[in-house]
């Protein structure tokens, strides 16, 4: 017995001593996480995982080759523990979540009826996939088999569905998928993803300037998951209430149902989801990445600036927003009248964005109250210029400065400021009002004038109705509200009385000639056709550009180098990176493009946020590879779409004309829930080349 004890003791001492000396002599540094993870595995070195022992498996996890669920003995708890260890890595501090990119319709029809290998990988290797679509899901569920957390299942539509609450972001599914359909990304990566040619994108999603995942939110509305729809939209566009009201929805122009039937009312569905959130009275929580410690100055609190600030904040940067007006919102507050976008709606939306922790300074103007030198001195790491296009172009005709003559932006802004109680400048409204111009600003002016009680409101436009750049619905609404239109009329001069007050507008009649650069037929004046129109108020709204006076006013002349174009817009060498010739200054929106759509500014804001993020994290600021910026994926826009049965589109509820011309209350109303659900059923759930045919 004593020998046994002695023997055991001595063997223990010898082995222990040899090993402890060896561990000092042969010390090699290794990642501390490896041993931590090894501690969480079963440490049985059984090899069941396919790795050569627990240490090797742990090393593979740390290198990202193996999933946290690698240990087959230790079970789910250990997997969660390992995922937690990996989660502490600052590089992946944000939780990774898998997302299925390929979702939607019936997909391309099955190309092969092959009864062979029931595995996506095998199928992909042998036949390049079962579906016609080059990127589409093969549907054999390799991802489901790969997931150790039971977070993926093949849903009834035949495509993988991910249970986000179970997903730990281990990446096993992504590795298993031969088609890159399943992707594991952090929230930041998702926010920064821009459409690429090999993405699984429906036509509407390709066309939307903000790149919203339209089929996804319509699907969520269909499934009564309105909060989910709001979150889907908000991943790309923080202005869902505003866009839901004012967006001219280019997406609907390419809607596949629209080829054979009326397009799906995408924008009204967006508004329905957005209003659902607002009417619930509670902002849905929005998550932000951990703080990066970088500071960005955003100049301009319009849609572009707010959108850029919103995305930068969600990426973890701290943002200071400067605006020259007393309240934020820019053109969508001061340019878009109350009846199209009520101020309390806008207020609620902007509050939601600022709640993320964006600091603001209002009533400060670039070039007057602060300049580039002061921003640089304050230690901002990057600057975003979203100053919009607030300077009206002038007609350059005689008498345009007479009493009773205004410019469009000036008129709308002054009126909106007074209406909100921030100013007391009243504009006397005439009886016979004329607005010159055919754009949205002109229409906003006339509809505002109608509501302010002007007896006769006329639009004077030098081309025809067909060439008017304003939104179709807006033109129709103005017609319904009794606005008169004088087409093919070019103002020649404004006539005034002895008091310097405008009394008449002389114009020349025009006829259409050859098409010009923009594809519209150029109006040519008819000699001797001068006609005089009696007026007592004139508004010119013929276009607008950015006000770049700050370049001249600045003392330090640092901005003098900033390149601008001959239209006074700020020159971003590449419209995809939006970086100016001064590397730490970025721009987008109307300031970069000239007056354009709200949704362009919002999409640009995200694009600029991406470039700023790249710049701040020390990566080269380059355009998105294989980008489909301002173009569609070839072969995804069809001329005809089979299998569609005509179903009427949901009609937008409107306030009756007689009532709405007396008030600034919202004229367009939101869809009822049952109509929204019915409308969502009309969506064909398209992807690049596939869609759900209507059941007969």
């Amino acid at each position: 017995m004593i020998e046994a004890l002695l023997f055991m003791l001595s063997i223990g001492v010898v082995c222990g001593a040899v090993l402890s000396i060896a561990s000092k002599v042969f010390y090699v540094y290794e990642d501390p996480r490896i041993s931590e993870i090894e501690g969480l595995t079963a440490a049985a070195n059984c090899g069941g995982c396919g790795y050569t022992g627990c240490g090797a498996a742990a090393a593979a996890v740390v290198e990202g080759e193996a999933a946290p669920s690698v240990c087959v003995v230790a079970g789910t708890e250990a997997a969660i523990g390992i995922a937690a260890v990996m989660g502490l890595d600052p590089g992946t501090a944000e939780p990774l979540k898998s997302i299925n990119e390929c979702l939607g319709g019936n997909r391309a029809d099955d190309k092969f009826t092959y009864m062979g290998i029931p595995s996506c990988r095998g199928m992909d290797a042998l036949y390049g996939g079962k579906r016609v679509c080059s990127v589409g899901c093969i549907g054999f569920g390799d991802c489901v088999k790969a997931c150790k957390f039971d977070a993926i299942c093949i849903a009834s539509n035949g495509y993988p569905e991910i249970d986000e609450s179970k997903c730990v972001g281990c990446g096993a599914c992504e590795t298993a998928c031969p088609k890159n359909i399943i992707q594991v990304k952090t929230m930041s990566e998702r926010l920064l993803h821009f459409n690429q040619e090999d993405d699984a994108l429906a036509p509407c999603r390709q066309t939307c300037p903000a790149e919203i995942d339209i089929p996804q939110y319509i699907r969520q509305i269909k499934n009564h998951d309105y909060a989910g729809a709001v979150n889907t939209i908000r991943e790309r566009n923080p202005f869902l209430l505003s866009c839901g009201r004012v967006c001219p929805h280019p997406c609907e122009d390419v809607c596949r149902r629209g080829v054979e039937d009326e397009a799906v009312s995408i924008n009204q569905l967006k508004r329905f989801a957005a209003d659902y959130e607002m009417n619930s009275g509670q902002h849905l929580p929005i998550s932000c990445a951990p703080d990066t410690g970088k500071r960005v100055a955003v100049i301009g609190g319009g849609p572009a600036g707010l959108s850029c600030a919103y995305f930068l904040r969600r990426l973890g940067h701290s943002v200071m927003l400067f605006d020259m007006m007393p309240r934020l919102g820019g053109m969508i507050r001061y340019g878009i009248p109350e009846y199209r976008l009520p101020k309390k709606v806008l207020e609620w939306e902007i509050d939601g964005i600022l709640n993320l922790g964006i600091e603001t300074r209002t009533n400060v103007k670039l070039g007057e109250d602060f300049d580039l030198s002061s921003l640089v001195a304050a230690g901002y790491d990057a600057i975003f210029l979203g100053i919009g296009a607030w300077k009206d172009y002038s007609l350059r005709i005689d008498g345009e400065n007479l009493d009773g003559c205004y410019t469009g932006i000036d008129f709308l802004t002054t009126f909106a400021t007074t209406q909100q109680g921030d100013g007391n400048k009243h504009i006397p409204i005439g009886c016979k009002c004329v607005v010159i111009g055919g754009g949205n600003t002109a229409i906003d002016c006339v509809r505002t004038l109608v509501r302010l009680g002007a007896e006769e409101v006329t639009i004077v436009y030098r081309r025809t109705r067909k060439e008017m750049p304003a939104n179709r619905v807006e033109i129709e609404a103005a017609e319904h509200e009794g606005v008169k239109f004088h087409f093919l009329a070019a103002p020649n001069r404004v006539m005034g009385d002895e008091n310097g007050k405008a009394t008449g507008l002389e114009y020349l009649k025009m006829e259409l000639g050859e098409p010009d650069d923009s594809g519209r037929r150029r109006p040519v004046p008819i000699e001797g056709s001068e006609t005089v129109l009696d007026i007592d108020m004139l508004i010119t709204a013929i276009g607008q550009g950015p006000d770049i006076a700050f370049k001249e006013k600045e003392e330090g002349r640092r901005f003098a180098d900033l390149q601008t174009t001959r239209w006074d817009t700020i020159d971003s060498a590449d419209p995809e990176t939006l970086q100016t010739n001064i590397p730490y200054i970025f721009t987008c929106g109307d300031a970069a493009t000239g007056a354009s759509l709200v949704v362009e500014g919002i999409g640009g804001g995200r694009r600029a946020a991406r470039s700023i993020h790249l710049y701040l994290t020390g990566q080269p600021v380059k355009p998105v590879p294989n980008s489909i910026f301002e173009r569609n994926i070839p072969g995804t826009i069809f001329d005809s779409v089979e299998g569609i049965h005509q179903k009427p589109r949901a009609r937008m509820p409107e306030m009756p004309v007689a009532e709405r011309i007396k008030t600034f209350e919202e004229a367009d109303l939101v869809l009822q829930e049952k109509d929204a659900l019915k409308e969502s059923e009309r969506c064909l759930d398209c992807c690049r080349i596939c869609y759900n045919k209507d059941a007969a």
Partner: protein
Amino acid sequence: MGYFELIIACIFVNNILLAQFLGNCPFLGTSKKMETAMGMSMAVIFVMVLAGAITWIVYTYILVRYDLVYLRTIAFIVVIASLVQFVEMFLKKSIPALYAGLGIFLPLITTNCAVMGACVLNVDKEYTFVQALVASFAYAVGFGLALVLFAGVRERILLARVPKPLQDTSIGLVTAGIIALAFYTFKGMV
């Protein structure tokens, strides 16, 4: 028995994996890829020869001499585990190239019953030291041979259509059975 017969017997007739059923866990675990299987085989050869030698010495000169044979199991496992860990540390520091090839397989070998089994078999059969060395080497070669053959077949199975209930381990075992059948024909050679 000559060394040649001993080698043939240990590699083919009494193949440690397919006839003695030792080391089956890593057999199924590391045979999914040919590359892993090769590395594992080399590491097993390396460790088995070392372990065979050391355990033979411990057994003959300590356990038998002091009449402590009943402590064989515990002594062997402690010696093997320490040896493997020592070799791992040594290789990691001194010969990183070899470690990259073999070292990562070493922990798996600690609980590989083939190594422990070979050592126990050596002393059970009362081999001399040289015989024990040769037998250990041959067992390890047999292990490697079976593992590599199996990995080759398994890579092909990946592309075959296997009925669902049979997938993965199940078909692996049946395949192993068929390979074992091939090895079974060596029976009676020695």
